C-alpha cells in the first residue's frame, strides 16, 4: 500500500485544511496510509553560514523521502500560501532535497468561496523551483470553498458532489504515483542538479 505524507499548510489550531487532510486519511484508509505532518513548530527560514537546518525539518524530510507521495493542504493568506508553509518548503530545500521527483497532490480549503485558488497556483510555481522540483499532479485542482460549513460533526465532508470529486482526484493521484514510479530514469541526475543548485550561487 502506498504511503503518503500529508502536510498541514497552516499553523492555526483551528484549521479546516487539517480537517480536510484528516478526512482524506480516514476516507482513503483502505487505499493508502496517510500520515499528517505539522509544520507549525518550525522557525522562520533563515540562511546561515553553516547551512543549519533544524532537526524537525530533517525529520520531516526523512518522512517525505520514505513516502510514495505528498499531499499538501494550503490555506490562502493574501493571495498566496502562508509564510509558515513557505518557510517549511524553504527549510525542506536547504541542502536537502526530499521533494525531487516526489509526486505531490495539492489541495486547499478556505472560508470564502474561492477555496485558496491563488495560493494553489503560487504553490505549483514554488514546487516547480530547482531546489524543490516536485512532480506535481497536473490539471487537478481541489478547491474547498466555504470550508467552515463543509464538514459535519464527525469531520466528514457533507457535499456528495465534492466527495465524488475528491474520490476521483485521489484515485488519479494513486495512478499518478504508480506511473511516476516508472518515470525515474532521470531521478539521480535530477537530485544531483538540485544539490548543485543554490539560490545564492551563480
Amino acid at each position, binding site marked *: 500500500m502506498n504511503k503518503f505524507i500529508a502536510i498541514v499548510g497552516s499553523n492555526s489550531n483551528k484549521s479546516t485544511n487539517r480537517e480536510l487532510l484528516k478526512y482524506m486519511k480516514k476516507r482513503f484508509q483502505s487505499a493508502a496510509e496517510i500520515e499528517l505532518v505539522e509544520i507549525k513548530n518550525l522557525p*522562520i*527560514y*533563515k540562511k546561515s553560514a553553516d547551512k543549519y537546518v533544524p532537526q524537525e525539518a530533517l525529520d520531516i524530510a526523512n518522512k517525505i523521502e520514505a513516502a510514495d507521495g505528498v499531499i499538501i493542504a494550503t490555506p490562502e*493568506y*493574501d*493571495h498566496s500560501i502562508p*509564510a509558515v508553509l513557505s518557510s517549511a518548503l524553504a527549510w525542506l530545500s536547504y541542502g536537502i532535497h526530499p521533494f525531487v521527483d516526489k509526486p505531490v497532490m495539492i489541495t486547499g480549503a478556505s472560508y470564502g468561496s474561492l477555496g485558496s485558488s491563488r495560493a494553489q497556483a503560487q504553490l505549483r510555481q*514554488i514546487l*516547480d523551483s530547482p531546489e524543490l522540483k516536485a512532480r506535481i499532479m497536473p490539471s487537478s485542482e481541489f478547491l474547498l470553498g466555504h470550508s467552515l460549513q463543509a464538514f459535519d460533526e464527525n469531520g466528514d465532508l457533507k457535499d456528495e458532489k465534492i466527495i465524488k470529486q475528491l474520490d476521483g482526484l485521489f484515485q488519479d493521484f494513486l495512478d499518478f504515483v504508480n506511473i511516476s514510479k516508472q518515470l525515474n530514469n532521470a531521478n539521480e541526475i535530477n537530485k544531483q542538479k538540485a544539490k548543485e543548485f543554490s539560490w545564492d550561487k*551563480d
Partner: protein
Amino acid sequence: MKLVGIAGSIADQSYNRTLLNFMSKHCKGVADIEVLDINQVPMFSQDDDQTNSSVIQKLSNKIKSADGVIIATPEHNHTVPAALKNVIEWLSYEIHPLDGKPVMIVGASYHTQGSSRAQLHLRQILEAPGVNAVVLPGNEFLLGNVKTAFDDNGDLKDQRTIDFLDTTLQKFIKFAKVINMIDADDYEKEDLSATGKTDTTVEGVDMDDPDWLNKAAKKVNAVEGNTYVKLDSGLLTVNQLNYMLKTTPIELTYVDENNQFIYYNRFLPTEKMLAKRTPEQVGDSLTTVHPGKERVIKHVKQVIHMLRSGKTDLVSMPVPGGDSDHHVMHYYKAMHDEEGNYKGVNEWAVDLKPIVNEYLKQTGQMLVPDPNAKVDATSGASKKPDAPVDATASASKEETEKEVKPEVDATSSASKH
C-alpha cells in the same frame, strides 16, 4: 518625501539590504529613505496574535507615517522569502498600514532572473484585499548577478543601472504624490469634538464643565502636592513639577490624541498670554475652544492630521501682525510613545524677539534688512503671511486663509524624531 524600505531577507548578508542602503544614500535630497528591520518579527499565527507587540507596532507606525514604501525582495523557490511574506501577514490581519500606500518593488538576486518571479508573486500578495497596497505599475527593477553588482562601498558599479534606478525612483516619487492626493482631504475626519476615547480619557465627567480639572482629578484619584512622581529622568513631587513648569517662560499646551485640551502651564494671567487660555477651558474638546470658527477649525484639523499621520512631526508658524518688538511663534510638535504611537500635540507659543534682542545686545550686533531675503523667511511655503493655527485657544484676530500644504517640509523645521 519620506519613504521606508523593507529588505525582504533576514539573512545576515543580504544584497537586497545593500540595494536599499545604496538607494537611501544615492537619493538623498530627493527622498529620505529609512530602511526598516524585520529580523525580530515572530512567525505569524492566528492563535497567537502579536499585532500589539512592539516590533509589529513600530513597523506599522513607520509605514503609516511614510509617503511610500520600497520593498526589495530576493527570490527563493520562485517566490518571496517566507520572512517577507510573514511580515505582510501581520500587516494585513488586525491592522492594515499598507492600505492605500504607494509601494515600489525592486529586487536583487544571484541569478540572471533578478527575482523576476518573486516580484510577480509579491505584486499578487500586495493586491490582496487585506493588504491593499497601491503598487507602482511597470518599472520593473531586476538586479541580476548581484554578487558582482556592488563595489566595496556598497555602491552600484554600472552607471546605466544607476540611471535606470534613478528614473524609476523619480517616477515612484511622482506616483506616490498622486496616490497620496487621493487621501489629501483625510484631515476632515479629524474629530475635534473628542468624541472618541483613549486609554487616558477620563470618562464620566463632562469635558466642557468649567470645573473639569477637579472633577476629573477626583475621578481618577490623581495624586497632588508632595506625592512623588517617577519621570523617565528624574523624581519630582507634583508640587515640584508645578514649580518648574510655571517658571518655564514658554507657553506650553497639551492636547491629547483624542483632541482634548488637558493642560497648560499657567505662569501668566490670561490677558497677558500670547495664546490665551483660561483655567475653565482645561478639559475642553478642541471644538469647544474654537466656537463658531469654521476656518480655524479647518486649519486645526489640517495641522493635527499632519502630526497624527506622521507627515511631519513639527509645524511652526509665525503669528502675523507683529510689530518690531514682537515675533510670536507657535509650534506644534507631535508626541509619541516608545512604539511610535501618536500621543497628542505639545504646543508652545513663544515670542522670539526678546531672545533675538538679548543675543544682539550680548554680542554687540544689530539687525539689518537682507536685500536678498525672500518674503516670509520663516515659512517658505507661501508668500503671504500665515495665520497661526492655535490648536487650543481661539486664534488671533487676523485669520487669513492658509492652506496647509500636504508637503510640509517647507513649513516645518524638522521632520524626524
